[in-house]
C-alpha cells in the first residue's frame, strides 16, 4: 500500500505489518460526531467468592491463553511490581505471545525485556515508555510495532473496543473481598485510581491484585465490585515511594527559573489569569516554578481560580488550601501530600482518564483548561512537539496527556531550554511527532518566546507586555549557533512504534535504529 502524508506532514505507510491499515492523522480538531462504546460480556457472580489463592489460579479462572491482551495501570509508576509479577507468573505458566496494554512502562519494568526476548510478550500498547524497555523496543525487539497512545486516546480506544482487553490486572492499595478498591489506604497507597477505570469497565475479566485486603466494604470505593471478577492477595504490589514523579522541588537552576518567569509572563499577558482561571502543569522543577510564580500573582491580585488539574503535587494542594482554586481534578497523585489531600478534602476530586481527556466522550475536562504548561524534547518550526523519543531516536517518553491537554487548553505553552545535552531543542523537523503543532500556541525558552503564527491575537498581547518575542526560526538559529546542526539520526525500515493521536489516527511512526 502507498505511503501517505498526514496532516502533520509526516510520511507514513497506508498499511503497517503487525498493526494493520493506517488511518492517517487528519488534524487535531477534526472530530467525529458519534462514537460507539464497546459491548462487554459479563460473567455473572451473585455470591461466589472472588478470592483466589494465586495468580496462576486467576489465569486459570480467566481462561488466559496465548495471544491474549492483558492490561496494567501505572499509578505506582516506578514503584510498580504488579506487571512484573504477573508476567513472571505468565512465563512460568507457559504463556506466549501476550499483548501488554500498560498505561505506562517505567525502568522498574526492565524484566519485560526478558519476556519479550522469550516470546512471552510480543505486543505492547502504552502511553509512555522509559528505561530499558524503551531502548529494547527501539532496537526492534518486538516483531510487531508497539502502539503509543495518549492518555485520553487509551481510554477512548478501550471504550470503543479498538483495544480489547482480555484480562485487566489492577493493582489495588486497598481492596475488599467483593472487589471494591481504592488507592487511598494501605502501605502502598498511591491516591486516585484513574487509569484502570476504563480497563475495569471494558475488560472481559478483571483481577484485583492487592497487598491490603480490607473488610467489606472498602471505603471509599474508587473502582467498584460490579466490575471485578477475582481478587488475588500478594505480599506487596510494589513501593509507593516510586510514585514521586521527576522532581517535586521548585528548580533553583537560574535558566529554569528564567523560563518559568517568562512562561508566567505569557500566562499573565494572555488575559486568562483572572477569576475562574484553570490550568495544568506537569511535575518537574521548571513547571513547579511556573506554578509558584502564578501562585504569587494570584495571591497579590486576589484571583480565585476555578480548577487546577494534573498530575497533582503538594504545591497544587497548597494552592487549593489557600483558596486560589475552587477544586483540584486529580488523575494521578505525584506525591504523598496529594494523597493525603485526596483523602481529606472534598474539593480534591478524583477523575477517570476518560473524564480527563477522552476525545470521544460527552465532554472531557481538558477542554475546560485555560492554560496548559508542557515540556518538550524537540519542537520543530511548525511547532510540532516530540516527547516520545530522544534526539537519538530512542523511545524515552510518550504523549501521556501531552496531546490531549494541548488540544483542549485555550493556550498550550511549551517550556524548554533551547539546548539540552548539547542538542538543539528547536529543529527543522522533530524526530517524531507526538503533539501536532496546530495545538501548540507558545514555545518559551530562556532566549526568547515564539508564538504560533495561528495565534496572532496572542502575539500582539505578548508584545504589548514587553515579553521577548522572536520567531520560531530565530530560536532555531540561536540554538544552532551554539550547537551546530546535528547529523540526522539513521533509521532502518522496520517500524518499531506507531504513534496514535488521541482519536486513534496515526500521527507518526518510529523506525528501528540502524
Amino acid at each position, binding site marked *: 500500500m502507498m505511503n501517505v502524508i498526514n496532516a502533520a506532514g509526516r510520511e507514513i505507510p497506508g498499511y503497517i505489518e503487525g498493526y494493520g491499515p493506517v488511518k492517517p492523522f487528519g488534524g487535531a480538531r477534526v472530530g467525529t460526531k458519534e462514537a460507539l462504546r464497546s459491548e462487554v460480556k459479563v460473567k455473572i457472580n451473585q455470591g461466589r467468592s472472588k478470592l483466589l489463592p494465586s495468580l496462576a489460579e486467576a489465569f486459570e479462572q480467566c481462561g488466559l491463553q496465548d495471544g491474549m491482551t492483558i492490561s496494567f495501570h501505572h499509578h505506582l509508576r516506578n514503584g510498580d511490581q504488579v506487571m512484573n509479577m504477573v508476567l513472571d507468573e505468565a512465563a512460568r505458566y507457559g504463556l506466549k505471545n501476550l499483548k501488554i496494554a500498560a498505561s505506562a512502562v517505567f525502568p522498574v519494568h526492565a524484566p519485560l525485556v526478558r519476556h519479550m526476548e522469550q516470546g512471552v510478550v510480543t505486543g505492547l500498547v502504552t502511553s509512555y515508555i522509559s528505561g530499558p524497555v524503551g531502548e529494547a523496543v527501539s532496537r526492534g525487539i518486538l516483531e510487531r510495532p508497539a502502539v503509543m497512545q495518549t492518555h485520553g486516546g487509551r481510554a477512548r480506544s478501550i471504550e470503543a473496543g479498538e483495544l480489547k482487553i482480555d484480562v485487566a490486572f489492577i493493582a489495588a492499595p486497598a481492596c475488599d473481598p467483593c472487589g471494591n478498591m481504592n488507592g487511598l489506604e494501605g502501605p502502598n497507597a498511591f491516591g486516585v485510581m484513574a487509569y484502570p477505570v476504563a480497563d475495569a469497565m471494558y475488560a472481559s475479566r478483571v483481577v484485583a491484585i492487592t497487598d491490603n485486603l480490607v473488610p467489606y466494604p472498602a471505603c471509599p470505593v474508587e473502582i467498584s465490585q460490579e466490575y471485578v471478577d477475582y481478587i488475588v492477595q500478594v505480599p506487596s504490589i510494589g513501593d509507593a515511594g516510586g510514585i514521586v514523579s521527576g522532581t517535586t522541588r521548585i528548580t533553583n537552576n537560574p535558566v529554569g*527559573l528564567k523560563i518559568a*518567569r517568562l512562561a508566567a*509572563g505569557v500566562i499573565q499577558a494572555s488575559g486568562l489569569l483572572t477569576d475562574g482561571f484553570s490550568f495544568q502543569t506537569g511535575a518537574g522543577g521548571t513547571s513547579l516554578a511556573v506554578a509558584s510564580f502564578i501562585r504569587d500573582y494570584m495571591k497579590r491580585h486576589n484571583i480565585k481560580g476555578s480548577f487546577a488539574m494534573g498530575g497533582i503535587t503538594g504545591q497544587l494542594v497548597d494552592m487549593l488550601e489557600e483558596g486560589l482554586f475552587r477544586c483540584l481534578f486529580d488523575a494521578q497523585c505525584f506525591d504523598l501530600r496529594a494523597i493525603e489531600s485526596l483523602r481529606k478534602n472534598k474539593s480534591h476530586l478524583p477523575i477517570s482518564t476518560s473524564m480527563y481527556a477522552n476525545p470521544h466522550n460527552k465532554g472531557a475536562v481538558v477542554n475546560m483548561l485555560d492554560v496548559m504548561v508542557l515540556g518538550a524534547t524537540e519542537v520543530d518550526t511548525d511547532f510540532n512537539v516530540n516527547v516520545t523519543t530522544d534526539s537519538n531516536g530512542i523511545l524515552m517518553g510518550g504523549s501521556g496527556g501531552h496531546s490531549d491537554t494541548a488540544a483542549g487548553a485555550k493556550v498550550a505553552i511549551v517550556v524548554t531550554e533551547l539546548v539540552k545535552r548539547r542538542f538543539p531543542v528547536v529543529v527543522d523537523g522533530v524526530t517524531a511527532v507526538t503533539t501536532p503543532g496546530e495545538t501548540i500556541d507558545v514555545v518559551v525558552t530562556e532566549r526568547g518566546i515564539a508564538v504560533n503564527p495561528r495565534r496572532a491575537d496572542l502575539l500582539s498581547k505578548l508584545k504589548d507586555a*514587553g515579553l521577548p518575542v522572536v520567531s520560531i526560526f530565530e530560536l532555531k538559529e540561536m540554538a544552532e*549557533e551554539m550547537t551546530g546542526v546535528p547529523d540526522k539520526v539513521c533509521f532502518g525500515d522496520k517500524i518499531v512504534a506507531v504513534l496514535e493521536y488521541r482519536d486513534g489516527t496515526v500521527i507518526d511512526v518510529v523506525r528501528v535504529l540502524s
Partner: protein
Amino acid sequence: MDRSTTTLLFIPGNSPGMLKNAPVFGADCLILDLEDSVTPAEKDAARILVRHALPWLKTQGTEVAVRINPFSEAFLGYEDMEEIALSPPDVIMLPKATKEEVQILSGLLDEIEKKKGLAETGIKIIPLVETAAAVVNMREIAGSSGRVAGLLLGAEDLTADLGVKRTRRGLEILYARSKMAMVCKAAGIAAIDTPFADIRDEAGLHYDAHTARALGMTGKAAIHPGQINVIRKAFTPDEEEIAYAARIISAMEEAEKESRGVLALDGRMLDAPAVAWAKQTLEKAKRATTW
C-alpha cells in the same frame, strides 16, 4: 561601560555551561572571571575557554568584561592578558589595582589595539578597589588612565585587609562606598558596588542594593543570576518616582509652550537639577527590562 550600567554578573571562566547561558539573565555586563572563582589548577584551561567564548558572547547584546588575575600574583595576570589579547573583551577588570598597575595594563591594551587594528582606548578598564590603600588612593586610580570607565568595590578583600568583620548591615564599608560614589561622580565614571555574598538571602540583597544606590553607587555586581532582578529593581526608579518624573516633564513642556520662565509643580518651584533628575529617571525606567 558607563554610569548607566547597573547590573554586572560574574561568570566563572572555567564553566562552559555557565558561559553558554550567561547572556540570558539580562545583566548589562558579564564579567568572565579568571580570578577567585577559578582554582590555580584550572587557570590555563579557563583563560583558553574564555578566549574562545568571547567572540560569541560579544554578539549577544551585552557588554563583556574579563576579570584577570592581579598583576601582583606571580605572572598570572600577565599570562591572562597574553591569552585574552587574541580576542579582547570590552572591559578588563584588574583586581587589587594600584595606579601604576592600571597604567601598565593600559599600555598593554595600547599594544593590543594597535596590533589588532582596534579603535584607540576602546577597551576600558575597571580597577577593583580592594585594599585600604586603594580606598585612600581612589581618586588617583580613577584618574590613572583615560580607559578607566568605573571602579568596583571589593568588600570581602577590603574588610579582610582592614581586619574587620563583614556584616549584613555594611557599616564597615560605608566610608569606601561613599568615597567611591563621590570620586566616580566627579570623574564621570561608574561606581560599582561589591557583590552580596549570600545568594539565598534575597531580603539581604534587597537591603544591600538599596543602600548602595542611596549612597550614590551607580550599579552592583552579582555572583548569581538570581540576584540580577533584585539589583536591577533597586537601581531602577520605582513607580512613584517614575510618575513624579513624568509630571515634572509634562509641567516643563507646558511651561515651555507658554514661554514661562518659572517652573512649578504642586506649588513648589522646580529648578534645572529637578528637571535633569526627571529626565534621567525616565530614561533609566525605559531601559530597565521587566522580564
